[in-house]
């Protein structure tokens, strides 16, 4: 069935709550009639009751921390951190608590919590509502980081996330919510750590994630018209990272461009460039190019925001430069 990412997430929450009564949803406005600002939790309170779909006060530390504590003691909470920017408010509970229980308690703990959060620029809402931040999260041992780029993956990965016994941060790009594609009916799980080869190609590898996977696909379509065969890899999960799919593609093409909406330093793009240099050095025919946002906050200004985020034109240029090397 064709549906948007928004609908796919909503449907998955319905399915998983129906399947397992230990699954609860909590967050700000999640039990409101419209299901939050983007309607993601629409219909859940009517179906499952407000004891399982819980409107919380505006207290991100307590929301995320309590979700972690509930997970530690037997529930399977899906907490909503409305915008990933609010990570600033609740980072201790993620960084020092949830992520570390398993290890520091010597394997006693199980923390099956999912933190759903909205990432990315594109709505003109400025520095505190537009960040990406997933490299920051992916850098933390003990949590998994998921970044779907289409509705089918959103369903498959969210189902897996909810059933996973480890903490998972599920990043939803706000500019992709309405993007539609075919989504498998019924139960659908996708394994973590398996990238998706979105486009097959032989001249160059373009790696993207979340929205930049979509941008990479669009760039590949343009490049195809110019006779360039680009392979596009959508990482789908950042931690665990599917290194072999990247390296195998690189072995085939010998050229790599990584597109990542994060700020450049310590970005996913840097991580993948590092991987290519360390483990794919012999297969590289040209330097790796990283297309990222700049080392600046996200401006509220629409014309500057458009300049800020990676776009198709920048990817096409980077590919052409890499091919010309």
């Amino acid at each position, binding site marked *: 069935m064709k549906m948007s990412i928004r609908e796919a997430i909503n449907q998955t929450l319905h399915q998983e709550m129906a399947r397992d009564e230990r699954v609860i949803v909590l967050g*700000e406005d999640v039990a409101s009639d*419209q299901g939050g600002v983007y309607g993601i939790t629409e219909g859940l309170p009517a179906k499952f009751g407000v004891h399982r779909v819980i409107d919380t006060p505006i207290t991100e530390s307590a929301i995320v921390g309590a979700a972690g504590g509930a997970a530690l003691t037997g529930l399977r909470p899906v907490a909503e951190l409305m915008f990933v920017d609010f990570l600033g408010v609740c980072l201790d509970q993620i960084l020092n608590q949830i992520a570390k229980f398993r290890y520091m308690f010597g394997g006693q703990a199980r923390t099956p919590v999912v933190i759903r959060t909205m990432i990315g620029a594109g709505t003109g809402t400025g520095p505190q509502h537009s960040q990406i931040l997933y490299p920051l999260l992916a850098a933390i041992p003990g949590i998994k980081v998921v970044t779907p780029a289409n509705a089918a993956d959103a369903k498959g990965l969210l189902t897996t996330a909810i059933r996973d016994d480890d903490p998972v941060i599920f990043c939803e790009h706000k500019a992709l919510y309405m993007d539609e594609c075919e989504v498998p009916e019924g139960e659908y799980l996708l394994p973590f750590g398996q990238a998706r080869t979105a486009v097959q190609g032989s001249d160059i590898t373009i790696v993207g994630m979340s929205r930049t996977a979509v941008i990479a696909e669009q760039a590949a379509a343009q490049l195809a018209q110019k006779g360039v065969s680009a392979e596009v890899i959508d990482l789908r999960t950042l931690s665990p990272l599917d290194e072999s799919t990247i390296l195998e593609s690189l072995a085939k093409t010998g050229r790599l461009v990584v597109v990542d909406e994060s700020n450049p330093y310590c970005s996913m793009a840097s991580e993948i460039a590092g991987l290519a240099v360390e483990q794919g050095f012999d297969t590289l025919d040209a330097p790796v190019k990283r297309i990222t946002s700049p080392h600046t906050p996200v401006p509220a200004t629409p014309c500057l925001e458009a300049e800020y985020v990676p776009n198709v034109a920048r990817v096409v240029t980077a590919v052409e430069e890499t091919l010309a090397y």
Partner: protein
Amino acid sequence: MDVPTRKLKTAYRLMKTIREFEERMRSEYQQGKLPGFIHIYRNQEAVAVAACLDMTNEDYIASTHRGHGHCIAKGCEIEAMLLELACKEDGLCNGKGGSMHIADMSKGMLGANAIVGGGPPIAAGAALTAKTLGNGAVSMAFIGDGASDQGTVAESLNLAVVLQLPMIFMYENNRYAEFTKSPKPDGRIAERAGAFGMPAEVVDGSDFFAMYDACQQAITRGREGGGPTAIEAVCNRYYGHFEGDPQAYRDQDELAQERAVSDPIPRFLADPRAAALSAESIAEIDAAILSEIDRGFEVTYAAADPTPDKLYTDVYIHYEGRLR
């Protein structure tokens, strides 16, 4: 308490400016002429204006996502604000902040804030500056009823008491946070603040005179070294959470009634203490406001967008590294 006519005029002018400014903004926004998200302050004007009326540019406020009224009350220029809200090069923040991050350091306006609960620790810091320098300045944080639950607010309340800071916690209890009605009865917020060990009172936030009275006391207490104060201003959020939210979740009869009884401007004008304001002076003020707003929009729409190189300015004051 008698309010001098000069102050009455200023109070009326500021409340009315906020009202007209935002009504005009709404209509421009609805036509797609302004970017981002905007949160309208209508019916809460008496809070900001009473709060800032006895402040100078040396006093500080930390605002919220619903900050246009706070800006105007603190003395920000209409034209510079509009340029910012339209994200133009000459805006207060060079167009980089927009509605949710508008700030004017020259006026002691330490920023709107898109992080709920982000402001109070900053205001506490400004109060610490004032206390350390001993300059008699005060600092105020505006805090929504929803924000009142945030851990940063509790921590700031405690810090302000521990350090005896010249700070005012100005709660605006409009009884809604986004689409969710406040589960707390009126007064609970002040009670909670009071429990930290500071004077705290509940005031009718649409009664300018009651608000002004409470604010004068709080400001005087702060200036004289008496420490922090909390005020819970009970008011009404006239429009939706953000512009474009039709408030379908609200009881429409109740909303209509609240809107009518809690409009601070007619209440102000009907108060015998405002009798010194003549009909002529009101008409004069009204006309001046409208022409200032018209001029502001004219200038704004003729103004330039920032050039692409501006993306890379002001990340740091000085930086040895590469930005792109």
